[in-house]
């Protein structure tokens, strides 16, 4: 798969017990459930549940988790910074030259909750996508009546973000080959700004051409994309989800279900 953003399966069609449409819908519902949790323990239980289900369905965890790990900075940002901005109960305070730096318990809790939500959602969606090919994903979204313009933008994004990163890298190398040496911070930022600006400009032009080439091959209005359909097994997926929702509504600890 190399430089593609998401962990889609290679090849034509995958052999899954559930249809791609159901996997997308179920992950979305699961994502909503996860995002609504306000307790660390319930969030952790749901993440464990995702990991268990993923392992049982032979998710390629190495690929999924290595991609999820790229969001590490975003997660740490919330966990490490929020304690200093929000709360009443003092966790600890540090003396710094300009005064006291105080970390609060509530801020830390909120940071952990947000961090866990982000990690859980990313892992959930990446794991779900790792069970289908790009074609099946498009088919699923088409079945769900996602407009072609949205699908087109998504496809172009999936193709062009990695290309965009690669091009920026190549331009940086070309600069260095022509004698550019990394100077001070301001100079570096200026150079990077120029590179990012010009690559965005090029990527925009290119994405228009790609979209044109997609419409020429029948993408969008007027022609049919075969949807991914549904399978009989899909009912099991939704029974499981309903059970999970019932358990959460009755405030039963999820850990009980897992053990």
């Amino acid at each position, binding site marked *: *798969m*190399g*430089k*593609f953003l998401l962990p*889609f399966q*290679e*090849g*034509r*069609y995958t052999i899954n017990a559930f249809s791609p449409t159901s996997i997308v819908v179920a992950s979305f519902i699961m994502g909503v459930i996860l995002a609504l949790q306000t307790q660390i323990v319930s969030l952790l239980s749901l993440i464990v549940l995702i990991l268990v289900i993923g392992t049982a369905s032979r998710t390629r965890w190495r690929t999924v988790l290595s991609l999820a790990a790229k969001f590490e900075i975003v997660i740490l940002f919330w966990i490490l910074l929020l304690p200093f901005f929000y709360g009443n109960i003092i966790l600890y305070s540090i003396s710094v030259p300009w005064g006291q730096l105080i970390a609060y318990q509530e801020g830390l809790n909120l940071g952990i909750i947000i961090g866990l939500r982000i990690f859980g959602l990313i892992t959930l969606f990446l794991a779900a996508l790792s069970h289908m*090919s*790009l*074609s099946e994903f498009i088919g699923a979204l088409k079945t769900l009546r996602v407009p072609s313009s949205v699908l087109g933008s998504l*496809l*172009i994004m*999936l*193709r062009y973000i990695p*290309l965009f990163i690669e091009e920026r890298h190549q331009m940086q190398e070309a600069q260095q080959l022509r004698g550019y040496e990394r100077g001070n911070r301001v100079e570096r930022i200026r150079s990077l700004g120029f590179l990012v600006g010009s690559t965005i400009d090029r990527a925009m032009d*290119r994405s228009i*051409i*790609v979209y*044109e*080439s*997609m*419409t*020429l*091959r*029948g*993408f969008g*209005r*007027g*022609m*049919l*994309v*075969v949807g991914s359909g549904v399978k009989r097994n899909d009912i099991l997926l939704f029974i499981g989800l309903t059970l999970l929702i019932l358990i959460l509504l009755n405030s039963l600890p999820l850990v009980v279900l897992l053990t």
Partner: protein
Amino acid sequence: MTCAIEVDHLYFRYKEFSLEDVNMNLHLGEQKALVGLNGSGKTTMFKLIIGLLEPVAGSIHVFERKVERESIWEIRKDVGFLFQNPDDQLFAPTVWEDVAFGPKNLGLPPEEVERQVDWSLDVVGMSDFVNRPVNQMSHGEAKRVALAGIIAMRPKILLLDEPFAGLDFPMISTMVDIIQNLRNEGISVLYTTHNRFFLENWADSVAVLHDGKLIYDGSVDHALQDPAIMQQTGNWNELGRRMREYRGLA
């Protein structure tokens, strides 16, 4: 002779550039070269034919259907357009998925999609690349896969924008053979080129664009004898000479 494409008093304007009063035909089964210097309007002409651009005045008919908003989807089923840069066309993770994109959009059943993809990859000699990621191919391979993606939709007309640009001799030779075989199946071909070799050895007729105006549309033999026309096609260059040697032409 039946017209596959009929361009009638076509006008187009975009910023500094304009196409003025272009009249041109591509007959059924014909192989026509569209030549001209950079910026003469060749790619714009293609985009107008395929309906990516709208003319200011005049009309284009494809198999007697006028190119307009209402008919564009039907016309695009009949006309395949190969972009000059294959990177502009390939977007799916693997070769198979990219080639299958068009047939799927046509609403073909999965087994028919399989058949079309296998056939088109076989035609361009890329059957072994079926699971290869599209970003791990050479320019020539990518170009052949891009062509496979077009012919998988079984078009009746091919518009090829610089099909040989950036290819080495063996790859050019392969592309020539592929397109020749498609033509033998009755597909009409309109292609742009800067090289006189592809004009002399390959085209049934030639149209010459200069600064947005069509200055010639007719036989290749006559065009080759007119220095003013040949100025627009580039010189008899090293590439042409070596290609003739490579393909064993006199």
